[in-house]
């Protein structure tokens, strides 16, 4: 049994966010972190590894410096890493990204009791689409918003978070789960893990590596193969000066409610 975890290096949105002229994010100029939900997926995989001794393989698509993030996840306890990296893959939207990641997972190979895990969504794109799309391309059952995961044989029981409650779902492996932060508390790297991180196996899948997969077609990957294109990106306007309403009567309250409703706050 193995668990393949898809992770993404994202800009640290607590710092400055920069945008390229074509509207895509200027990833090179920003401080990066591992997408927080993805770390929950990594932790869920490592917990299953603690229980069952299974193998944990971590996969990312990104520029060569994303190797640093993969090494950090190896230092937390993952066994192997795969960096999917090629110019041809750049500028992909969620459709193209999931196409490429699905082909990478095909290349790694999925067996009967394997599990693919993703984070719920990445804090840069905020779409929450890549996980479910990978599941579709690989014809896997999917459970999103996993808040609890238990594995018994070839079945996984998942507590799935909904807006106003939870549902419990039993799913057969192989399957894909997307994880939320309520699932667990990600562990730290360990000192010995750091010293082992650079001797663990790490492979780079280039365009050449994946090009024979039926999912990889120049018309379905990268910026050109993306059905959606970003037309423009802009910084939301700053909030203006605050408005003070004076009075302690119903009329003032109604006025306040009206103002808030107009701005779609309530």
């Amino acid at each position, binding site marked *: 049994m193995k668990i393949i975890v898809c992770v993404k290096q994202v800009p640290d949105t607590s710092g400055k966010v920069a945008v390229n002229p074509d509207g895509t994010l200027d990833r090179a100029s920003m401080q990066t972190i591992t997408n927080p939900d993805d770390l929950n997926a990594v932790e869920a995989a490592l917990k299953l590894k603690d229980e069952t001794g299974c193998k944990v393989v971590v996969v990312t698509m990104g520029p060569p410096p994303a190797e640093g993030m993969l090494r950090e996840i190896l230092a937390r306890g993952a066994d192997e890493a795969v960096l999917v990296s090629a110019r041809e893959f750049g500028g992909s939207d969620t459709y193209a990204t999931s196409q490429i990641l699905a082909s990478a997972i095909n290349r790694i190979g999925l067996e009967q009791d394997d599990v693919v895990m993703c984070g719920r969504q990445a804090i840069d794109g905020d779409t929450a689409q890549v996980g479910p799309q990978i599941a579709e391309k690989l014809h896997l059952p999917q459970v999103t918003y996993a808040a609890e995961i238990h594995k018994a044989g070839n079945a996984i029981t998942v507590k799935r978070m909904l807006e106003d409650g939870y549902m419990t779902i039993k799913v057969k492996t192989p399957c894909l789960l997307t994880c939320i932060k309520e699932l667990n508390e990600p562990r730290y790297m360990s000192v010995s*893990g750091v*010293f082992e991180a*650079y001797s663990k196996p790490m492979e780079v899948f280039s365009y050449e590596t994946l090009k024979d997969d039926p999912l990889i077609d120049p018309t379905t990957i990268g910026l050109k193969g993306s059905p959606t294109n970003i037309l423009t990106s802009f910084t939301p306007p700053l909030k203006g000066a605050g408005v003070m309403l004076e009075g302690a009567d119903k009329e003032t309250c109604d006025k306040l409610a009206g103002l808030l409703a107009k701005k779609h706050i309530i």
Partner: protein
Amino acid sequence: MDFHLTKEQQMLRKMYREFAENEVKPLAEEIDEEERFPMETVEKMAKLGMMGIYFPKEYGGAGGDVLSYAMCVEELAKVCGTTAVIVSAHTSLCCAPIFEHGTEEQKQKYLPDLLSGRKIGAFGLTEPGAGTDASGQQTTAVLEGDHYVLNGSKCFITNGNVADTFVVFAMTDKKAGNHGISAFIVERDFPGFSQGKHEKKMGIRGSSTCDLIFEDCIVPKENLLGKEGKGFKIAMQTLDGGRIGIASQALGLAEGAIDEAVKYTKERVQFGRRLSQFQNTQFQLADMACRTQAAQHLVYAAAMAKENHESYSEKAAMAKLFAAETASDVTRRAVQLFGGYGYTREYPVERMMRDAKITEIYEGTSEVQRMVIAKYLGVN
């Protein structure tokens, strides 16, 4: 000459920082206020391999290097001086002498538990009458058949109330002076061994500091560390390494105080301007940062020299002297930049100033460091 950290060291720095921010900083004020040893933090550090960083894996260590250890103490001290010294005393003063001077049997017996953090270590050298003059040892050890009988006491022992394993020094031959001192590994439950009460200190108040008392304490003969009469040398060598740890603690305290002062002076407004816009603030912070950077280079150079098995006694003494005096100076200036608020316990800088003072005293006072450096220069 290479001023770059390795990839592993950079990754570790990130890990230490995350751990310090999330696990250590939130407790710092409470353990200082309550003078409480943060056992829960030690358990977490143990799991992550932070209690045996630079020792080989075959003895249960994390397989790291001395600079990676110094950086750990530094990052912890940025947010909590107490947590930093717990790691430093355990690693440098107890694990290191057993690793460097122990027999294979002693290493096999004691190191796995210590390096994995299942057990905590301490070092017993200082006595009421033997501080800077460490040769004035009054504790005695007499060989009787298959064991030594220890009598006497030790004072100001870091980790004293919580440690399981102690490296202790005693006179086996009073007439031989320095050459009559021997080192022993003492376990917490050896008959005749007990600990005194927790000392009430000005700073590092969460750290456990107490007396050790030996009343006809029975120590098996095989627990002699090194040869009889070589104890003074073991103590001095151990303290050379320990000084890198304390220098790292002092460095971290200075860095932590600068972080706090930068943040505060950018927020606080007087005369319609942020404090950071006044040139006095800028010049103070520039001086503080400059001294601290210089201290960091001395500390890292000493750690690298130890790692590379070069002579580092004088480098450790210089690093500790300069870093400790920097920590005292920088934390005091940080309190000043905070003004009246800096004097209250609502803000962390007064704690940093209290914690910094001890770095000029323990593991050899600043005056002892000057003695070591002068001897290195040949002016003795």
